[in-house]
């Protein structure tokens, strides 16, 4: 029985330890059950020997023991151990395509890299990747936006980046954006990043890139992990700190594999009014009926309460000038006009929060009726309830949002020669229903409140087929096409006007083709074309603010060439892309609404995104890794007859950015790493006209020291990381925006910044037990 702590509101002290204790009891029970299976086997205590005494010692024909090669997987000989007859080996052809054969710029982040990095959230790790652009507006987990290839423009919020967790789409029905606060780094086994479009396989949102996340599951020997993270902004025990505790248990017992994950996060992040409380419990089970049929189930519950600190003006971040002090004394400007410092919350709001509760469940049935055919059926369901409010003493804007998504993914993969050439054919269908219900209310002092409701639904069906044909051992031709059709029904009521209903049918064809050539064993080149799309989100079509029911789907044609090198000492990648985007959906805040600049979502007729992504990792010895990456993104508006923005640069995405760092392994299980993240200047969000001063470039350095004697005991391991982020205490704002709801024309004083964290430290402790 799991007893979760009572749901606490932001500002109330949450009860960490009782909840952790309850989780621990459940996890220990699970672990002990698996331990029973483990102790059934003497493998851990009395392992089989490779070269024990031969059984027939007195046999007349007895011969010396066979020369079995030493097996590193087997422990040393033990007394009375069984005699090994020698190793049997069975081989098969790998089913997955290697990175060198993949016609795209792909990176895999494994668990070891995650643990070495000492980061708290996955987007922090994604910042180091070439081509990926990460911004944060809260200094906590709810503020992340992750985009690629010039789509970080301050208005999409991540809707051109598809994120999948164990194959389940996380882009939400309402906003088409992934909520990164719901993705827990401690439960991740592996992350696969594909830059560029994959709509031919995955459909909606897979425009700038696709991030596939695979959770840890429980495959393998029973194992229990406890991970505790404490971080502080400023001093230990200060009011701004992070505290997170996670527990993971899992293991395999015969045909059953199970895992349980629980996490509690209680943080007051860098900014004032940036509290974050989160509870998460996830489970997964997998049962292999035979070696051809397996059934998996996963489900989870998560809730969080998150405060949003809002924006500050440049004057509020900086100390007051003498003139400012004089004017404050005279009363001509308010005391909050200046000198609040970067950690302050926006003084123009007295409440700003978003609380969410999420439940999800999914099942996957895998069947291989014949060896070369794999069929999967994956039904899933997901619900989220959000309560949010934002306001100052004179007005409060509040909302209740219910979202639901359920569907069925079906796929068949077959490896069958075509014209005697190695070949794989994949086809499948996706069915999905999404519902979005929003009740909002604007209460203004002395005025009657104005409630507004919107009910939206989208039913999508899609069919796709993919083909991978090895023309020679070194030359791979791949291609595919997908058709998506979405039926939208939207209903909007804003009293006293009558309810408005409208329906929409959206269609998209997504073809792709690529040629990959293996130059030599460690190197390959590729050339590819892909068409991709993003449907307008339900909120963009019929939201409470900035809606536009006439929005068209955003489409793009991507042309790309790339080079990859993967050897033991060197991993390198280079990609050049050109993306012609039609009807790119942006939030145009220059459109008047309610008599002031308010904004609405619009299509830009044509934009062009082109750039370069380069990454290099060199391991000259087994103890040292040097790495770096460089990204060039040139995203501009090419044609827009309505807004006269032709030639302007897309905001928020910098032209240049890069990373550099090293990891050095030291004696006694210590290691040290350093990472530099350098981001060039970029225009403010909403400044599509490129008239306001740019956000300045910045460089941030992180230092991580690790002590990882994970192997000091067969049954117990330990890992300690100590990280200092923003080592040189750089004051900067990763994200800034020209404010909406200002009287035109906009001026620099209408600019709001989201200050990023200055120097802070994070200590992580992992205890790993293998009973």
């Amino acid at each position: 029985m799991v007893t979760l702590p009572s749901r606490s509101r932001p500002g109330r002290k949450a009860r960490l330890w009782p909840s952790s204790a309850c989780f621990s009891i459940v996890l220990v029970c699970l672990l002990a059950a698996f331990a029973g299976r483990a102790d059934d086997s003497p493998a851990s205590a009395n392992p089989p020997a490779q070269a024990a005494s031969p059984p027939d010692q007195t046999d007349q024909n007895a011969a010396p023991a066979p020369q079995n090669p030493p097996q590193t997987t087997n422990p040393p000989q033990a007394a009375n151990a069984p005699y090994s007859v020698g190793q049997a080996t069975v081989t098969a052809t790998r089913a997955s395509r290697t990175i060198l054969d993949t016609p795209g710029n792909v990176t895999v982040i494994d668990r070891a890299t995650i643990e070495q990095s000492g980061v708290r959230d996955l987007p922090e790790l994604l910042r180091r990747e070439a081509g990926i652009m990460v911004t944060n507006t809260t200094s906590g987990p709810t503020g992340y936006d992750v985009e690629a290839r010039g789509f970080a423009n301050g208005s999409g919020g991540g809707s051109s980046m598809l994120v999948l967790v164990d194959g389940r789409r996380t882009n939400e029905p309402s906003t088409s954006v992934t909520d990164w606060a719901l993705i827990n780094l401690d439960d991740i086994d592996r992350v696969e990043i594909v830059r560029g479009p994959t709509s031919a396989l995955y459909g909606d949102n897979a425009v700038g890139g696709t991030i596939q996340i695979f959770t840890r599951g429980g495959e393998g020997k029973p194992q229990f992990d406890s991970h505790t993270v404490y971080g502080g902004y400023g001093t230990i025990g200060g009011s701004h700190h992070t505290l997170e505790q996670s527990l993971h248990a899992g293991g395999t017992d015969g045909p059953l594999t199970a895992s349980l994950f629980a996490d509690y996060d209680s943080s007051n992040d860098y900014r004032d009014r940036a509290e974050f409380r989160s509870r998460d419990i996830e489970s997964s089970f997998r049962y292999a009926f035979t070696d051809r049929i397996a059934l998996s189930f996963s489900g989870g519950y998560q809730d969080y309460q998150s405060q949003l600190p809002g924006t500050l003006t440049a004057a509020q971040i900086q100390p007051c000038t003498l003139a400012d002090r004089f004017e404050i004394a005279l009363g001509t400007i308010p005391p909050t006009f200046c000198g609040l410092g970067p950690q302050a919350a926006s003084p123009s709001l007295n409440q700003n929060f978003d609380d969410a509760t999420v439940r999800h469940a999914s099942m996957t049935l895998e069947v291989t009726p014949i060896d070369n055919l794999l069929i999967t059926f994956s039904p899933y369901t997901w619900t989220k309830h959000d309560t949010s409010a934002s306001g100052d003493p004179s007005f409060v804007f509040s909302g209740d949002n219910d979202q639901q998504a359920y569907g069925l993914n079906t796929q068949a993969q077959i490896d069958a020669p075509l014209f005697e050439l190695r070949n794989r054919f994949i086809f499948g269908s996706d069915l999905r229903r999404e519902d979005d219900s929003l009740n909002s209310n604007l209460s203004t002092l002395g005025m009657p409140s104005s409630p507004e409701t919107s009910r939206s639904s989208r039913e999508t069906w899609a069919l796709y087929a993919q083909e991978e044909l090895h023309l020679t051992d070194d030359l791979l031709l791949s291609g595919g096409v997908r058709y998506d059709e979405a039926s939208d029904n939207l209903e909007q009521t804003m009293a006293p006007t009558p309810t408005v209903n409208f329906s929409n049918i959206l269609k998209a064809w997504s073809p792709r083709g690529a040629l990959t050539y293996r130059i030599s064993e460690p190197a390959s080149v590729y050339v590819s074309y892909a068409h991709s799309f993003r449907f307008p989100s339900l909120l963009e079509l019929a939201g409470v603010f900035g809606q536009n029911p006439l929005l068209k789907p955003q489409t793009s044609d991507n042309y790309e060439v790339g080079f990859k090198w993967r050897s033991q000492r060197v991993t390198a990648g280079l990609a050049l892309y050109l993306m012609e985007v039609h009807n790119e959906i942006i939030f145009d805040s220059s459109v008047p609404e309610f008599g002031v600049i308010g904004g609405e979502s619009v299509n830009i007729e044509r934009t062009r995104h082109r750039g370069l992504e380069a990454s290099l990792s060199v391991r000259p010895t087994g103890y040292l890794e040097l790495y770096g990456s460089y990204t060039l993104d040139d995203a501009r508006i090419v044609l827009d007859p309505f807004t006269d923005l032709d030639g302007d640069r897309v905001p928020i995405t910098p032209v240049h950015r890069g990373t550099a760092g090293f990891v050095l392994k030291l004696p006694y299980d210590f290691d040290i790493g350093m990472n530099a993240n350098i981001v060039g200047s970029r225009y403010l969000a909403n400044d599509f006209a490129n008239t306001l001063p740019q956000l300045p470039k910045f460089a941030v350095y992180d230092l991580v020291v690790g002590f990882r004697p994970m192997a000091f005991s067969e049954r117990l391991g330990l890992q300690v990381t100590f990280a200092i982020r923003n080592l040189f205490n750089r004051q900067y704002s990763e994200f800034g925006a020209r404010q909406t709801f200002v009287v035109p024309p906009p001026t620099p004083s209408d600019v709001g910044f989201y200050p990023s964290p200055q120097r802070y430290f994070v200590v992580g402790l992992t205890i790993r037990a293998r009973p």
Partner: protein
Amino acid sequence: MRRATLASRLAGIGLLAALGTAGSLRADELAAAPPHARSPKVVVDAIAHGPSVDARLEEIRRRIQENVAYPPLARWHDVAGAAVVEFEVTDQGRTQGVRLAQSSGTALLDNAAEHAVTTVTGLPVVHGRLSIPIRFELTGGE
């Protein structure tokens, strides 16, 4: 071999945890006694003639290898690894007392390894407890 089911163990341990005794109870006290305690130790081979021990062991290894099939689901998921299986050979050339001595970390591979040893026939007789590491390898990748 006495092996409690997972469900029964969970129920039992859950009950004990509820009674507050879980902390003092070792998990292996609930498990079956290790089978090697009951396994016959290496004994004298009664066969005085015929192929040498090495030749018979090699024949056992070869026959088991021929009987192993890569689990299709494991191949599709790029799962590779090695499992160690212990067994004895009966006078009829079959196996008995088969058990997984060391897991590959994956249920599919463990089951395939156990199945290969359990169903193999026509083995030359060798007395004593034997073990075989069965390695599942994937080719054509990184």
